[in-house]
């Protein structure tokens, strides 16, 4: 059974105007079990990681990342975005079992 994918956290800057390049920061709680460890009984703990992250703006893919077990627990991912208009971000995190967790954020100009 897979470990739960925790609550995602997104941070978008406020006071954004068209032409700005902003930084989007994301964090999600997850064990990122490497598959290299053994439990106290000596049995291998199976690999269980977030293996894919995707960020879409108004449905268009902006950025994606393939993660390996070498990404630290509670993956932190930050990337830039060039602002042209207001709109909706959708982020998805997918684990080894194919389960996904979504988070949305509205980008407002002002």
């Amino acid at each position: 059974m897979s470990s739960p994918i925790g609550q995602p956290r997104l941070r978008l800057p406020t006071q954004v105007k068209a032409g700005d390049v902003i930084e989007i920061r994301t964090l999600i709680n997850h064990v990122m079990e490497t598959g290299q460890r053994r439990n106290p009984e000596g049995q291998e703990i199976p690999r269980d990681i977030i293996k894919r992250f995707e960020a879409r703006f108004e449905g268009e893919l902006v950025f994606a990342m393939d993660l390996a077990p070498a990404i630290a627990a509670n993956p932190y991912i930050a990337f830039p975005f060039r602002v042209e208009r207001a709109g909706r971000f959708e982020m998805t995190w997918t684990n080894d079992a194919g389960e996904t967790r979504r988070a949305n954020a509205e980008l407002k100009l002002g």
Partner: protein
Amino acid sequence: MDHPTSRRAVLALALAGAVLLPRQGLASLPQNVQTAINKLRAGRAAQEGRITLRLPAIAENGNTVPLSIMVESPMTRADHVKAIHVFATANPAPEVAVFHLTPSMGRANVDTRIRLGQTQEVVALAEMADGSLFMARAEVKVTIGGCGG
């Protein structure tokens, strides 16, 4: 005392070393890392430059090591960074991450936190829209390893 000949020889050797170092460097990587990089290169040369690979010189905790990569690029449709591949040369599996970038990012800059099992080199390979490749390396000294049980 003056030894012009030997000094010239030393200088020549030093220059040769400076030119040859990158290639010797690639050969100095572990075989599995070379294989992974060669597969990505598909016969293309990996040039130096354009990448700033930021990692701490000393990581006290290998379980979470901040990694920041910036690539010089206008990030236009015609000229942008398509992907950045990261390898940890002495981890049980060298693949760390593949970042897929698009022109809508405006800048080629990614940040995450990685695990390093021991002191080692981290390699970043950036693939541009025109198919050219750039490579950068950074050594991280790890005090407490981060892949373990």
